[in-house]
């Protein structure tokens, strides 16, 4: 009886360690983040493309870990991948916003310059 209880505790512990569930949600969300960064044009912005590349590498490593059953490490790597992808996305948008500012500034200059020939 006591042995059984111990065995069950041991089982539970073993299960606890191994029972980190497959990080389905993060597998999906990290993929979404990478796609989002691409759509924001992260490949063509140097700084952003670096983080996009990191995200992709981390995600493919994570997927290998998922296949080998190391869900815990996989989960952390997916977190990294997602954070890198989100940052790539934001950097791409920041660059685009700054370009818009430049264009608006040029427009103002043009109007002001053209107004008084």
């Amino acid at each position: 009886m006591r042995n059984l209880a111990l065995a069950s505790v041991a089982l539970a512990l073993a299960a606890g360690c191994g029972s980190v569930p497959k990080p389905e949600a993060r597998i999906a969300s990290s993929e979404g983040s990478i796609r989002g960064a691409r759509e924001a044009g992260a490949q063509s912005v140097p700084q952003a493309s670096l983080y996009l590349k990191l995200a992709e590498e981390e995600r493919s490593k994570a997927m290998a870990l998922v296949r080998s059953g190391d869900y815990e490490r996989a989960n952390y790597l997916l977190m990294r991948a997602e954070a890198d992808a989100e940052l790539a996305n934001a950097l791409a948008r920041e660059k685009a916003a700054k370009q818009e500012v430049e264009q608006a500034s040029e427009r103002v200059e043009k109007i002001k310059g053209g107004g008084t020939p």
Partner: protein
Amino acid sequence: MNRRRRTIMIGLALAGASLSACATTALPPPELVEARANYQKAETSAAGRLKPAELHDAKLALDRAEAEQRSSPGEPQVKDLAYVASRKAALAEAQGNAAAAMEEKAKLDAEAAKAQADALAASKKKLEGMEGAVAESKAEATRQKNETEKERTARVAAERKAQDAMEALEKSLAVTREERGMVITLSGSLLFATGKSTLLPGAQNQLNKVADALKTQTERHFVVEGHTDNVGTDDVNQALSQRRADAVRDYLIMHGVAAPSISAVGKGPIQPIADNKTVEGRAMNRRVEIIVQKPEAPSTPQ
């Protein structure tokens, strides 16, 4: 002695190594150091004002990494969580910068719209000014046209009046047309008593007619010439003829002939028109001539 010392040294080295190993595991990993720095940087960036929620997310991620460092120093997930916190801080900063850029853009767009409106208003005003100038010059042209027409009408009327007046004068007085102009000759004996230069009362009738005619002759110059016969000295005759010419000129001015347009000159006996040997001839030579000069030669004779 030597061996003992070496043993002690090895022991110390081992202890040191183990101590330093302990210290190393207690130190935060470079990922966490970077995360802290990134968060501080983000906090002071535009994100502090424009992206507080994102900055808060970054803070939570950093707190989680710090907690993991405290509870499980040296475990790999400390690095993972610090890595994530680092990216989240950078993310908040990038989003703050983007938001600041959009604010700037909105400001520039407003400025562009205002500049455009100003330019439009300026060109409209310029156009209106040009239209105004065109209208004004048109009005000016019309006014000038009207004026010249009016002037021409007036001039024609004045010329007719002048001609009529001279024609009327020709009927009642001795008027001849000569090279020097139209010459009105008045008999000296009708105007003055002998040797005097005071006009006789009977002279007024004739002189009034002359004044009325001359008044109409605008833009012409008149010369009143006094002439005498050859009785007496030339000096006396010259002076007398001058006084008589002056008297006639003054009378005409008093009766409306413009003073600047009339001059008087005494000729004395030097220009007789008849023979001084006869009484009739001398009577004819005593005369006053009023010359209406031709308009193309208005210079004062002397």
